[in-house]
C-alpha cells in the first residue's frame, strides 16, 4: 500500500525558539514530535538541534520515560538495551524498518520524513550500549525510502551505518529471522536469542525504527519531557496507520490515550462495524467500542487488545468482513516459514476453513474447525506467527458472528471490498 501521508499538528501550535538560555532549539511542545523535524540534515538540526553526547544514562532515561517498543511487542526498551549492554564482546545495533504488516505505513513515513531522527536514535542506542556496528533494515521495493536513507547517510558523511534490504516476507521481520538474514541465511525464525547471539554471533539489539526515533528525542530532551504527552501507564506519542473504510486513510502521530473516535474522525472513517487494532497481528473489536475506547494500554486491555504496530482498520456495514478474514487467513498460511508442523499445516487448514465459511455452507463444521485449530496452533511455533493468526481469527469470529451466521445461511449481501490487502510473500530460496 503506498502511504498517504498525514502529519497531524495541533492547529495554532507554536514551536518556541531558543531564547538563548539553553543552547539549541527548544523541545517540541505537544504534537507533532517525531513528525516535527525535516528530512534534510540542516532542517533536522534547526528543528531539534544536534544529538548530545550519550552515555549509559540513556538506558535509565529510557526506563524513566517508560519507552516501549513500537514494532508490535511493546517490550520495555530499556530492558533490551540493558540485556545487550550486559553481554561481553562487540555489540551490534539494528534498526528494524522492514514493516512487514501489509497495512502499516508508519515506518516508511518516518524514514521519509525524519530519517535523521531514526539514525540519531540508532546512534544513541549504539553509544549507550557501546556497540560499534549499526545496521538499518528495510524491505526491497521501496525506492523512495531507500533513497531517503541513502541521502541522509550521505549528509552525515556516511559514518559507517550499513543498510540491508530484506525480501518481502512477514516472518523475516521477526528479530531472530532478521538476524538470520543479515548473517547470510534465508531469514527464517530461529530459536537463537539475538541479545545473546545475533549478527555475526554477537549480542545484538534490534529495535523498530519508531522506537529508535523516540530514543533520539529522549536523548535530547529527557524522560520527563517524553512523559508530558500521553498517559501515566502509556506515556509519549505514537504513530498509527488508519485504513480500511476511510475517506482519508494515512499515518498520524497521536498522543497515547487519544480517544479512538477522534482518530476515526480525522481519517473520515465510515461508521465501524468492527475495528482491527494492531494490524493482522492484532485483534478485532466491535465497532461500538469506538465510543469509549482510548488508545492506551489500560483501555485497549479491556478489549484484550494492544496498539501493536499501530494499524487501525475499519470495516463498515457495506463490506463483507468474512471475505477479509479469509483473505488474511490465506496470507497467514502463505507467510509461514514452513518449519514447524502446527504452523505449516494448521494455518493452511485455518485458511481453508475460513474460505469455506465465506463460501457459505449450512454445516457448522468449518466454524468449529476454526475454533479448534486456533486453540491448537497457539504457542506451537518457533515464532509467534501461529499466535497472530489465532488471535486475528478468534477475535474476528466473535466480532462478526452475525455475518458468519448469514454466510452459513447462504446469504451475505455485502460485497468484498478488498479493504485488507494480502500481498503474496516472496518465495523462499
Amino acid at each position, binding site marked *: 500500500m503506498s502511504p498517504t501521508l498525514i502529519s497531524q499538528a495541533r492547529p495554532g501550535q507554536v514551536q518556541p525558539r531558543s531564547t538563548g538560555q539553553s543552547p539549541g532549539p527548544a523541545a517540541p511542545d505537544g504534537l507533532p514530535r517525531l513528525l516535527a523535524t525535516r528530512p534534510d540534515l540542516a532542517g533536522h538540526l534547526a528543528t531539534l538541534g544536534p544529538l548530545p553526547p550519550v552515555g549509559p544514562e540513556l538506558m535509565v532515561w529510557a526506563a524513566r520515560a517508560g519507552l516501549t517498543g513500537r514494532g508490535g511487542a511493546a517490550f520495555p526498551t530499556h530492558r533490551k538495551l540493558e540485556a545487550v549492554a550486559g553481554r561481553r564482546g562487540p555489540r551490534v545495533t539494528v534498526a528494524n524498518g522492514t514493516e512487514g504488516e501489509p497495512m502499516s505505513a508508519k515506518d516508511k513515513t518516518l524514514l521519509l520524513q525524519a530519517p535523521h531522527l531514526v539514525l540519531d536514535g540508532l546512534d544513541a542506542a549504539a553509544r549507550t550500549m557501546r556497540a560499534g556496528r549499526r545496521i538499518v533494515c528495510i524491505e526491497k521495493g521501496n525506492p523512495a525510502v531507500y533513497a531517503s536513507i541513502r541521502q541522509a547517510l550521505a549528509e552525515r558523511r556516511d559514518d559507517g551505518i550499513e543498510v540491508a534490504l530484506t525480501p518481502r516476507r512477514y516472518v523475516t521481520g*521477526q528479530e531472530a529471522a532478521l538476524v538470520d538474514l543479515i548473517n547470510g541465511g534465508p531469514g527464517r525464525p530461529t530459536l537463537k*536469542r539475538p541479545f545473546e547471539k545475533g549478527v555475526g554471533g554477537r549480542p545484538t539489539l534490534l529495535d523498530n525504527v519508531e522506537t529508535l526515533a523516540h530514543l533520539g528525542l529522549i536523548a535530547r530532551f529527557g524522560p520527563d519531557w517524553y512523559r508530558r504527552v500521553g498517559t501515566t501507564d502509556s506515556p509519549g506519542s505514537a504513530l498509527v496507520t488508519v485504513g480500511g473504510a476511510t475517506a482519508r486513510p494515512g499515518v498520524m502521530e497521536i498522543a497515547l490515550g487519544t480517544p479512538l473516535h477522534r482518530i476515526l474522525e480525522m481519517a473520515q472513517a465510515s461508521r465501524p462495524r468492527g475495528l482491527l487494532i494492531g494490524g493482522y497481528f492484532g485483534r478485532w473489536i466491535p465497532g461500538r467500542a469506538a465510543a469509549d475506547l482510548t488508545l492506551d494500554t489500560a483501555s485497549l486491555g479491556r478489549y484484550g487488545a494492544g496498539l501493536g504496530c499501530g494499524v487501525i482498520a475499519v470495516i463498515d456495514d457495506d463490506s463483507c468482513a468474512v471475505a477479509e478474514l479469509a483473505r488474511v487467513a490465506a496470507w497467514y498460511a502463505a507467510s509461514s516459514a514452513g518449519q514447524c*508442523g502446527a504452523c505449516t499445516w*494448521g494455518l493452511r*487448514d485455518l485458511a481453508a476453513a475460513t474460505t469455506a465459511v465465506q463460501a457459505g455452507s449450512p454445516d457448522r463444521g468449518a466454524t468449529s474447525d476454526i475454533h479448534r485449530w486456533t486453540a491448537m496452533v497457539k504457542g506451537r511455533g518457533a515464532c509467534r506467527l501461529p499466535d497472530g493468526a489465532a488471535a486475528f481469527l478468534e477475535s474476528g469470529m466473535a466480532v462478526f458472528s452475525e455475518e458468519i451466521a448469514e454466510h452459513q445461511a447462504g446469504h451475505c449481501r455485502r460485497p468484498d471490498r478488498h479493504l485488507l490487502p494480502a500481498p503474496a510473500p516472496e518465495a523462499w530460496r
Partner: protein
Amino acid sequence: MTGRALKLDPIACDGHGICAELLPERIALDDWGYPAVDPRPISGDLLLDAKRAVAFCPALALRLEKVAASLDGRFGVRRRGSA
C-alpha cells in the same frame, strides 16, 4: 528446588510421533501429527519415560531442561525470545 521439564524444538520436529507413544501422559499429537508437550516438571516414574522419549526422537527435537522454581514454589519455563 529445581525440576526437569520437556522442551520441544518445533523446527527440528518432524512429527514422527514416537514421543507421544512413549509418554502419552505428557505428550499428545495434534490434528497434524505433531506433538504438543506439557510444559510442567516431570518427576518419579514418568521421568524415566521422558528420558526414553528424548533418546528415541529421530529428529533429536526433545530435551529435558532444568526448570527453576519461582518464589511461590511454582515452576516457570524460560521463555524464548520475543517475536
